[in-house]
C-alpha cells in the first residue's frame, strides 16, 4: 500500500530540550496505526506536529510524499488531539454545524448524521459543557469526521469511556477503516484495546520512535513460549536441545526456561520430558500480549 503520511527526522524542542527527536514514522493508506508510549514520551507532540498545531524544530512531515506546508495540509484530515475542542455553551449539533459551515459541508442533515454515527443524536439542545467525559470524546470524534477525512488522528480517544463506549468506538473506527478506507493514527494507553484492531504499531520512548511493526510482525516477534519451571532448568534445556533439536531456549532463571520454538506443540515437549523421566514442576504455554512486548522494549511498568 502507498504511504499516506511519513515523517523525516521530525523533531520538536521545547526550551532547548527535545520532546521528540528524529522521528521517522511511516503510515500506509488504510492502516490503523497504534502509537504507544508512556506519559510524556512524545506521542502527543508527534500528533500535534502532523496536525499542524505546532511547528517542527527540525525535520518535516510528508503527506502522500509531498512535504507538508505548515498550515496547509495536503489531505483531508480530522483530529482529536488531547482534549476535544468544542464551544461549551453550544449544543453538539451547533458545534458540528459551525465546523460544517467552515468546511463548506453545510448540507442539510449532514451534521445530524455525524451525531448519529457517534450516538449523540438524542442530546438535543443540551449544552456541551454538561456532557459526560465519554460524550465529550464522542463529540470530538464527530468533529474530526466532518471533512470525511483520509486520515483520522486520535489521541487517547477512549479515555474516560465505559466498556460499552470503548467497544462502540472501536467498532466505529474499524467500520470507518474498512468501509470508507479511512487511515487512522491513534494513541492509547489501553494497549489490550489497541491490540484488538490496530494493524501497525509504533513505540515511542523518551522522544524517540524506537520501532515500528505490523500486526503480523508483532505476532512473529512476540511469539508466545512454553514456560517450564524445574529444579535444574539448565539440565532440562540441554535435554530438550539434544532430544527434540530445539534451538530457541532461553533460561530466565536457574529454575525457569522458555521455549520459543515448537510453541504449537506443547504436548510433544511434555511427552518427551515424561518419557525421559525429567521432573518439572510446571509447564504451560504463555501468551504474550502487546503490553508484554511494550514492557520488554521500554523496560517499564507504566504504558
Amino acid at each position, binding site marked *: 500500500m502507498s504511504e499516506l503520511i511519513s515523517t523525516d527526522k521530525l523533531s520538536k524542542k521545547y526550551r532547548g530540550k527535545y520532546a521528540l527527536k528524529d522521528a521517522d514514522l511511516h503510515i500506509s493508506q488504510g492502516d490503523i496505526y497504534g502509537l504507544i508510549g508512556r506519559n510524556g514520551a512524545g506521542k502527543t507532540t508527534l500528533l500535534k506536529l502532523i496536525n499542524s*498545531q505546532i511547528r517542527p524544530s527540525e525535520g518535516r512531515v510528508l503527506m502522500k510524499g509531498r512535504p507538508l506546508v505548515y498550515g496547509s495540509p495536503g489531505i483531508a484530515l480530522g*483530529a482529536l488531539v*488531547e482534549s476535544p*475542542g468544542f*464551544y461549551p455553551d453550544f449544543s453538539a449539533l451547533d458545534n458540528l454545524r459551525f*465546523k460544517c*459551515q467552515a468546511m463548506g459541508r453545510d448540507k442539510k442533515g449532514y451534521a445530524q448524521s455525524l451525531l448519529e454515527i457517534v450516538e449523540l443524536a438524542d442530546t438535543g439542545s443540551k449544552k456541551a459543557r454538561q456532557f459526560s467525559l465519554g460524550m465529550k470524546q464522542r463529540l470530538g470524534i464527530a468533529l474530526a469526521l466532518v471533512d470525511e477525512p483520509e486520515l483520522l488522528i486520535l489521541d487517547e480517544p477512549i479515555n474516560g469511556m465505559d466498556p460499552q463506549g470503548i467497544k462502540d468506538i472501536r467498532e466505529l473506527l474499524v467500520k470507518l477503516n474498512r468501509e470508507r478506507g479511512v487511515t487512522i493514527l491513534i494513541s492509547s494507553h489501553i494497549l489490550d484495546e489497541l491490540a484488538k484492531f490496530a494493524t501497525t504499531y509504533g513505540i515511542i520512548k523518551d522522544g524517540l520512535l524506537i520501532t515500528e511493526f505490523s500486526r503480523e510482525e508483532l505476532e512473529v516477534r512476540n511469539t508466545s513460549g512454553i514456560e517450564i519451571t524445574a529444579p535444574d532448568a539448565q539440565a532440562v534445556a540441554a535435554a530438550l536441545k539434544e532430544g527434540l533439536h530445539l534451538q530457541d531456549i532461553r533460561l530466565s532463571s536457574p529454575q525457569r526456561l522458555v521455549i520459543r520454538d515448537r510453541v504449537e506443540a506443547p504436548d510433544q515437549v511434555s511427552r518427551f520430558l515424561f518419557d525421559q523421566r525429567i521432573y518439572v514442576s510446571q509447564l504451560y504455554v504463555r501468551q504474550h500480549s502487546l503490553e508484554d512486548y511494550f514492557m520488554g522494549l521500554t523496560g517499564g511498568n507504566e504504558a
Partner: protein
Amino acid sequence: MINYLLMDFRRLFKTRGFYLTCLWALVLLGIMATASWFLADQLARNAGGLAAFSGDQIISEARKLFNVSRFASFFMSGTSFMHLFLAVFAAGFISREHQSGYFKNLLSIRGAREKWLVGKQLSMLGAGVVFYLVIILGSVLVTLLFGNQPVIDLAQLGAFFGLHLTADLALFALLCLATAFFQSRAAVMVVGMVFSFNMQALLYLLIDQINFLPFKLSEYGMMGLAGRLDIFSFGSTPPDMLSSMMGGGSLTGPATTPGELLPVSLGLWAVLTVLSLLTLRYRDYKG
C-alpha cells in the same frame, strides 16, 4: 474564506452574550438619558443661550436641545463605556476558539490561521455595526421620550460611527494579537478592558512627562482620540448650544478631526494585523 466568515457570523448571531452586550448598552443609554433629563436645565444655564426664559421654561427649552446626534455623541464621548462593552464582548468572542480548543478542529482547513484572523476582524466589525445601530436606535427612542423630533442625519451619524469603527477595528486587531500570543481568554479580556477604557493613557502621560520620546505619545492615544470626536464636525446638522458650551464634542479635550484619528487607527490596525499573522504562524498553538 467565505465559509469561514459565515461560520463566524453564524456563531456571532447565536451567541447570547452579543444580545446581552447590546441590552446592557441600552440600559446604560437609558441611565444617561435619565440623567440628561435632570441635568438639562443646568447645561442650558451654563450655555447661556436661554436667558430669555425662566423656571420651567428653561428646563423645557433645554430638553429640546437633545436630538439623536446629541445623544449618540453623548454616549460615545470621553472615556466611553460603549467601546468597553464592545471590547469585552469582542475579547470573549475572539479568544473563545483558542481557549476552548475548537481552533484545532479547524487547522485542517487550508490557511486556517489567516482565515481565523480575517474572519474574526470582519465578524467583529459586523458586530460593531449592529452595536452602533442599536445605540442609534436607542438614541432615537430617548429623543422621542424627550418629546423631540427624531431627526436622523445619516451622513453625520455614518461618518461619526464609521470613525469610531476604525478605532474599534484597531482594537479588534489588538485582541487578535493578544489571543494569538497569550491564548488565554482572561489575558485577552484584560487587554481589551485596559485599552478600550483608555487606561494606557496614564502610561502615555508618564512617558510624555519624562520626555522619553521626541513627540507627545498621548496625542496619538487611539481611544483618547476616538473619545474626543465631535459629531457636529460631520454632516449638515449644525452644532447646538451644548456643543459650543463643551468646546467641541467632548469634555476631555479639544475635538479630534478625522485626519487625526484615521491615520492612527488604520496604522495601528495594519501593524497589529501583521504582528498577529506572524504570531499565529510562528507561535505554537497550545490547545
